[in-house]
């Protein structure tokens, strides 16, 4: 189910350090999702206004959930920059991971966003943003 395809371009996130917090609202995380996602990656650039990059604990939780879902061997290196497709995640894996994350963080991820994230860091950032929005009384 995952399609393997060429990624010739990948923009690095402007801020990928998980220990940075409270980034200025002007920072844009532009990720060209094509070629590096499960199922049909979205061709449109997914832009996340990173108002607060993910806390290390969040990244850690995401990593643990991903490890469990994909039954990774302990030797498999998994960092915040790891792309899910590099780990052999298929679309059911991705959706299962998203669901587990929703339960873990008590948030709701819209389907159109669930495949716009391709790395651990991007997922963690998205979660952080949703958690923040919720705390602020948003959706």
């Amino acid at each position, binding site marked *: 189910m995952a399609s393997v395809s060429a*990624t010739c371009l990948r923009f690095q996130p402007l801020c990928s350090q998980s220990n940075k917090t409270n980034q200025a609202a002007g920072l844009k995380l532009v990720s060209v999702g094509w070629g590096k996602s499960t199922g*049909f990656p979205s061709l449109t650039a997914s832009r996340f206004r990173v108002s607060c990059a993910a806390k290390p604990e969040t990244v850690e939780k995401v990593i643990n959930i991903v490890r469990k879902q994909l039954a990774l061997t302990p030797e498999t290196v998994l960092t915040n920059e790891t792309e899910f497709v590099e780990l052999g995640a298929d679309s059911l894996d991705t959706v299962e991971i998203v669901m587990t994350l929703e339960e873990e963080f008590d948030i709701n991820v819209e389907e159109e966003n669930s495949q716009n994230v391709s790395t651990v860091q991007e997922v963690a950032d998205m979660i952080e943003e949703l958690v923040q929005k919720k705390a602020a009384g948003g959706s």
Partner: protein
Amino acid sequence: MSSFVQKMRSFQRNFSVSPFPLLPLQLPSPLETHVWFVMPDEFKSVSLLNQYMELLSPCEKENVLSMRGDQLQKRALLARTLVRTTIARYQINNHVVDPRSLKFKRNVHGKPQLEWESDDGQCPSPLHFNISHTSSLIACGVTVNSPIGIDVEEKQRKIKNDILAFARRYFSLHEVEHLSAISDSEVQRQEFVKLWTLKEAYVKALGRGFSAAPFKTFTIRIKNATERGFDCSDYLESGASEVVVESSDHPVSLTNNWKFGLFELASSHYAAICTEKEKTSDDGMSAPMRLTVWKTIPFVEDECISGTEAVVPIAGLIKQF
């Protein structure tokens, strides 16, 4: 560097590759669906895998090498090899093309498609394809003049989340009811996996994928033949059921366009295929999916397995050739 890559690099130095010729294939007729699949465990020859690597574009090679671990690299390599060699063999304009020369592009939602320059530069390729893979099987479906979506899942696939919670979150109301009514948890898991493959095949045939066609927005049902009141004598093997898709979001005229086939493949997988119905059909029964399935080792051998116990229809009108 993974040992897989190391082995391949050392072979590259000593090995001058001249690929065995690819045997040509007849294009599927407009009513036919061809399925080609490989099983990664059957590929142990480093020299053969090396030949395959030579078929890939530079971007594809880079992609293969970025996969974490030998098995994933092999899987990625075999997926691209399967697509390139299979398509190359179908005689368009009466000759087998060099698999290396094929170019691919993606539609707006990311579905891979063949980029094809016809003589007048206008016509898109008549050949449609779609792939799906699990750790133990990679399948490529091929049709002519009809979009195709294919999804394969291991029969034994375990779902980490609670199945009904997952279904309530992602599936339609009717589908949740259908799954809830199953009391045996193993049967429920199997039905869940089958339903997932059908839904995936549908959104892949649409060319939209999960993100752009949320699973909650459509329902897939399996209707018994008796409900439709047609003659089942031709379809003894399939138990004569029809798979239909319904959507409150989409008009009937859209969802009526699609037909499905669900079958057990190689005793280990569920495979679902979705293709467009032929244009001549009205609201009544459409012609069955004319299915041919081959297991292949590119450059080495093909084995036609349709009509054997390796292909067992489960739902949808399937006729095997």
